């Protein structure tokens, strides 16, 4: 547990998987959710790795980028939703809008919500908590 974590928010330990091909975003999200909020943060650098980690590590939520090379975030969300081992894990998409086609595909997804990029470090954890129904202390 981080020494910087707010104790009130640390009472319920959360484990969040961040899937993004940008190392900058993975580290910034780990700072916002882990160092500042005190949650356990797992990361994956691709859609394929994200699927593997979600199944193996069973996070409480997945924060998933949309535009990635290879398996993109929308395809990953669809696979998570259809796999018995991961279908109950809430998924929140991270997106900088993307193409019109991506926006249409996003609207058809059964995800917990969407957080626009660029995100604010100070509010990322609260945004995620609200979307997945966790108490915001």
């Amino acid at each position: 547990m981080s020494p910087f974590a707010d104790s009130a928010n640390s009472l319920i330990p959360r484990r969040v998987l961040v899937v993004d091909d940008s190392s900058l975003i993975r580290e910034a999200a780990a700072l916002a959710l882990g160092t500042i909020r005190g949650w356990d943060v797992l990361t994956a650098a691709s859609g394929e790795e994200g699927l593997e980690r979600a199944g193996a590590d069973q996070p409480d939520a997945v924060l998933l980028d949309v535009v990635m090379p290879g398996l993109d975030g929308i395809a990953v969300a669809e696979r998570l939703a259809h796999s018995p081992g991961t279908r109950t894990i809430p998924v929140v998409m991270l997106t900088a809008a993307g193409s019109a086609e991506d926006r249409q595909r996003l609207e058809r997804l059964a995800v917990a919500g969407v957080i626009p990029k660029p995100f604010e470090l100070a509010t990322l954890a609260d945004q995620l908590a609200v979307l997945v129904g966790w108490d915001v202390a």
Partner: protein
Amino acid sequence: LTSSALSTAVLQAIWTRHRSEVLARLDAIERAVASDADPGLRADGWRAAHQLAGTLGTFGFTRGTELARQLEAHLGERQAVPPDPCAPDLRTLACDLRCELDGSA
């Protein structure tokens, strides 16, 4: 340290550590702009601009975000279109973006 001061200091360290990723994306944008008719380079440039549009704001680069969004919009068009005399030149946008980010380490 407050969490906000901590965030600022740590963000700066993260930015410096991953600066090569940002520069690689800038290079991809510049290659796309220089070879406007090449669909592969254009797609790479669009992805790079999209990434920067979604990243720079978190690190405080408001103008950089706007420039990256404009580049993303132009490079995301299905094919190169005749230049709009009222639209900013792609090369100028790419150059402005590099100027914004140069010296930011």
